[in-house]
């Protein structure tokens, strides 16, 4: 995950390079480090370096990294001829390389030659069954073709081997949510919370999924996870504060005064509402009255 300061840093550098000020190589390094998907800029800035022999040779062995990055970015932009050119350079430098073979397979995929790409990936996997990137490409390819159930199957198989890959768990969770398979999504978030208990995002999204599922028990659990999100973020997460208000209001409606934890419920509700009021007053006063009206709808 990318923090706000990191994102601002990238954006600043991006516009500097755009205006001829900043260093394109620094920018590319940052994009690489933060694993961002800014393919149009990577292609544009990367090519400007590669097309200038002086800048290119200054990179030393990093030149080949850049060729690989430009090839992938070009595929993302559907500039397939640029991708092909870069791959050809790499083929010449590293004949028989599996890593270059992967790029060739990806180019087939980018062309939409699904069957050929599938064959290429399968043969690469035979040589190295633990190549994570190729496993992921196959799942992504299934998704690109609209075959979501196959994508789910691939990711599940992948997770049997690489259980600790949180990105893959997240991807699976998000697919389940998009199919409205909330129980399955909840399971994924439970796994994520178990493996990284201090990441607030997982607590928050788990609570969101439980609230979406509904029912008293789920609402009560959702409330607890919104509360832990608030705890982990020092009270700064407005999604979680809204979540508490939604939960307490829905629990109140379901139990209609028969709730044993009524006092705790209403206390938590007014505390969250108060925190939201304070936040809007400070940071967005023009929408403060709108917030008050919204909270009125969620009254206990």
């Amino acid at each position, binding site marked *: 995950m990318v923090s706000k300061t990191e994102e601002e840093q990238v954006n600043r550098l991006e516009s500097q390079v755009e205006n001829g000020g900043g260093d394109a190589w620094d920018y590319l390094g940052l994009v690489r480090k933060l694993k961002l998907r800014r393919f149009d800029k990577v292609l544009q800035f990367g090519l400007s370096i590669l097309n200038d022999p002086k800048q290119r040779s200054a990179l030393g062995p990093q030149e080949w990294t850049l060729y690989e990055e430009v090839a992938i970015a070009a595929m993302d932009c559907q500039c397939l001829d640029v991708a092909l050119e870069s791959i050809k350079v790499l083929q010449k430098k590293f004949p028989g390389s599996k890593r270059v073979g992967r790029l060739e397979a990806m180019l087939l995929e980018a062309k939409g030659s699904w069957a050929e790409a599938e064959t290429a990936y399968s043969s690469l996997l035979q040589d190295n069954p633990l190549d994570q990137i190729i496993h992921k490409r196959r799942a992504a390819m299934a998704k690109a073709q*609209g075959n979501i159930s196959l994508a789910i199957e691939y990711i599940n198989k992948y997770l049997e081997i690489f259980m600790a890959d949180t990105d893959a768990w997240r991807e699976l969770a998000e697919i389940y949510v998009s*199919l409205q398979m909330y129980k399955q999504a909840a399971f994924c978030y439970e796994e994520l919370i178990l493996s990284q208990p201090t990441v607030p995002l997982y607590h928050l999204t788990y609570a969101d999924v439980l609230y979406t599922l509904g029912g008293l028990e789920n609402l009560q659990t959702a409330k607890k996870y919104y509360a832990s999100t608030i705890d982990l973020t020092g009270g700064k997460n407005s999604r979680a504060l809204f979540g508490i208000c*939604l939960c307490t209001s829905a629990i109140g409606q379901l139990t209609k005064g028969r709730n044993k934890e009524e006092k705790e419920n209403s206390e938590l509700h007014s505390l969250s509402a108060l925190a939201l009021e304070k936040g809007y007053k400070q*940071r967005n006063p023009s929408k403060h009255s*709108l917030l008050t009206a*919204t909270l009125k709808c969620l009254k206990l």
Partner: protein
Amino acid sequence: MGGDSKYEIHQNAYIKLVLHALKHKTSAVNGVLLGRLSGDETVEIVDSVPLFHSQIGLLPPLEIALIMIEEYFNDKGLSIVGYFHANERFDDFELSNIAKNIGDHISKYFPVAALLLLDNKKLEALPKGKDRSPVMQLYTKDASRSWKLVESDGSYRLTIKEPSANVVLVDHISSEKWKDITDFDDHLDDISKDWLNSELFN
């Protein structure tokens, strides 16, 4: 029923929705349409609010957004009259269940609600052609209460108020105006951000 209603969307409402989809090219996005009935058969879509670009299948952010949006536009005499959806994949022209469910919810309160799905093929062809019709497909609820695509030969049922809207849209696309769009997701992440996008066209 939305059987014979016509829909007229204002340029700014239209452009906001398309730019929102372009800002988040790699994910599904959605938005709501604000407007009113004008005359017997026409729904006027005056404004729009871009909603989400991540995990649009989750209920809590949607509930908060709908309450806030309704509260805001009620005072202006506008209500939620429809829903906009753009699929994750370029060549996906199916109306997802999430879109249908949200549409169902909106049509409980506004029976002739429109459901708009971004037409990527038309959007792609826009800079080359002179098409003045919206780059969206219109779905309405038929007598059996299910969402039906209004056939393309009946495309006159969804029109843009300003005839030059697509020209303006292409202009905004080439000047990368989509970077400035703020949706409700952005607002929930940082409440100082304005989901009304009131500065966008200034």
